[in-house]
């Protein structure tokens, strides 16, 4: 498993497994979205649609709110009104909605929502540990003769001498 025997082949196969996992997950665990529903409104009438994977709240109106994300913007209707839900423009959120067909198209109706007003702070503070560990790696390791090794590894010192 860890020997040098067929190391190149092991690296290649593991790399392919990881790349394949990403591709497979992209298609196998993809969730139903608003665009899918609009493509065939009758088929998806009443379907549950999850909204909010890294999307934010746009303009908030009494009976609906806009959803913003890179390259997409759409509305979610809120039957009981948006007041009291704590919706704030710019906040990340997660929502369970239901697709309702209308006039050849359709809309999303809110069933449940959970906002994450501190997610930006969470992302921001997460940069620090990443930098600290990155700094430690740079201080501790070096790339030499095709391998990573500790800078103060005794074997490395002998080879350098």
């Amino acid at each position, binding site marked *: *498993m*860890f*020997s*040098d025997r067929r*190391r190149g082949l*092991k*690296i290649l196969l*593991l*790399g392919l*497994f*990881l790349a394949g*996992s*990403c*591709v*497979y*997950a*992209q298609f*196998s*665990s*993809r*969730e139903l979205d608003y665009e899918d529903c609009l493509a065939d409104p009758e088929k998806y009438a009443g379907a549950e649609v*999850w909204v*909010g*994977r*890294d*999307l934010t709240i746009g303009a908030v109106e009494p009976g609906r709110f806009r959803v913003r*994300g*890179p390259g997409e913007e759409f509305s979610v209707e809120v039957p009981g009104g948006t007041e009291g839900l704590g919706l704030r423009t710019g906040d990340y959120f*997660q*929502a*369970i909605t239901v697709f309702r067909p209308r006039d050849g198209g359709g809309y999303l109706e809110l069933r*449940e*929502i*959970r906002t*994450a*007003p*501190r*997610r930006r*702070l*969470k*992302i921001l*503070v*997460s940069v*620090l*540990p*990443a930098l*600290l*560990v990155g*700094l*430690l*790696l740079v*201080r*501790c390791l070096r790339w030499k003769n095709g*391998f*990573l*090794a*500790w*800078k*103060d590894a005794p*074997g490395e010192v002998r080879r350098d001498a």
Partner: protein
Amino acid sequence: MPDLVTHLAAGFLASRFFRLGRFLVLFYLGALLPDLLSRPFHIPFPPIFPATQPFHAPLVLFAFCWLAALFFRAEARRGVFAALYAGCLSHLLLDLLQTHLIGGYIWLFPFSTRTYSLGFAEPEYFLDYLWLTLPLSLLAFSLAWPGRERKG
């Protein structure tokens, strides 16, 4: 996910139970790795979220840590793999505590894409403990600084 400060602090506390020596920094890296391999990609580009989820699955992380270990010299690989993967598992266990309105983590991937979470705490809950986790993270950093692990 809890924030990475919490993950590093938890990794620091967990590392106290092992004799990691020079592999300590790799244990810390493992404690952050699942998020480092996924968040920088799907946060700016949400449509690829599903493709990044395997990096929160134990089997895929096993493969990644094995791959990473192969870039070290043969005599260090076992320790590199063990430290990285143990760190990753500490991350996954902490993530498992969270509650999600939608989704969770695909622990059994690639055999299943069903999501799991225990639902004890909101993802932002851990920010309330920054007063504790931030000093612990800085302590973790200072103790792992080259030369310190052998003095300690």
